[in-house]
Structures are given as C-alpha cells and as structure tokens.
C-alpha cells in the first residue's frame, strides 16, 4: 500500500515525532508507515484520515491502483 503521509505531514510542518504524538504511536511506527514497510490497521488509518481531514482513499492507495495510475500517466 502506498501513501502520501510524508507530504501531508510536511504540509502541516510536523516532524515524525509530532505526528506520532498526535496518533499516540511511536515515531518508528510513523516512519514504517511513511516508508511503506508497515500497513496501518483500519482504526489507525481512520485516525490519520481524521487528523488530516482527508478521505482514507486519498491518503492510502493500493499498490495495484498506484501502478495502474503510473501506467496511465506513462501512456499519456
């Protein structure tokens, strides 16, 4: 699963530790999510979506859709 968490976080001017405090998780967990090494649970994904006031599907994209999007962009 891919995500735009780093972009959203930087837009708010937050460090990973700040975001971790907001989500009540460790900074390592935020880092693992941002680098696509850990997929958050549904409750945590909802918490992230609520925090950034974005729909979940805008923040997280399944790999299959992400690759399909890039293929479409490549053809254009």
């Amino acid at each position, binding site marked *: 699963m891919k995500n735009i968490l780093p972009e959203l976080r930087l837009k708010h001017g937050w*460090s990973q530790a700040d975001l971790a405090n907001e989500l009540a*998780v460790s*900074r*390592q*967990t935020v880092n693992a999510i941002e680098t696509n090494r*850990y997929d*958050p649970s549904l409750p*945590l994904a909802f918490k992230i979506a609520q925090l950034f006031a974005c729909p979940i599907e805008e923040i997280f994209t399944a790999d299959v859709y992400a690759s399909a999007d890039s293929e479409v962009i490549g053809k254009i």
Partner: protein
Amino acid sequence: MTSALYIESMKNHQQPKESTIEQKRQRLTGRNVVIVAVILAVSLGIGSAPSSNSNQLDTRSLLWAVVATIGILAFMVTMVVDYSKADERQRHIQLQATAVAFIVVIMGLFAAEMAHALFNVNMAVATQVLFIGGIVIWSFARMLLERRNRV
C-alpha cells in the same frame, strides 16, 4: 558566520526525537527490567541449582524457589505491561517474536524428551536451558524485527 552555519547544520542533523508515548513506555519498561534483574540476581546469588539429593525440602531451596518464582512472575508482568503500552506495530513485532520462540522451545522440548529417553539426559538442566534459551531467542527475534524499521 561559520559557527552559525555549523549550529544550523547541527540543528538539521538532530537525532530523531521519540514520541512522548514511546518515551513513557521505554521509561516504564526500563524501570521494570531493573526490578526483574535485581530479583533474578538475588535468586542466582542464593543458588541456581538447589540440591536434589535429599527428599527433605531445606530452607535454602525453599527460599531459592520463592525468589525465583517472584522473579519469573515479575518478568511476566513486565512483558504484559510492555505489550499493553506498545502500539499496534510493536505488538505485531512482539507476537512474531513470540511465535518464533514458541516453535524453538517446543522443538527443543521434544528434542530434550528424546535425548532423555535415549541417552538419559538430565531433564531439569534441559528445561532450564530451554527456558533461558527461549527468552534469549524471543529477545533476539524482537531486536532483529525492530531493527528492520529503525531509522
């Protein structure tokens, strides 16, 4: 000017700070680990292999058993508290490490039982080795899984 640039670059290269919830968890676990270590050290000081020659339970063996039991119970409480304070990824890692250690200990118990039946290996020693080995393997597996994400 140079020093100002240096300070600015140092600011940019600060060690990543942990979240407050993680700092609290680490502090609590650290304190609990010290308590467990002290209790287990006292239990080792009393003696790790009480005499099994006599059928009578002597005071020293009883004391060793009580202190060792308190130490193991304290260790279990430490693990449960650490698990309850961990976030979902850390819990996932702890469960993965537990699964690895469980398989190793089960296979070790089977091997020890076979060795006992075939070569009359001392089961008391084998279970002690398996117990300590299980904890070591659990800690090692957890450390390896944690390091995969450490940045």
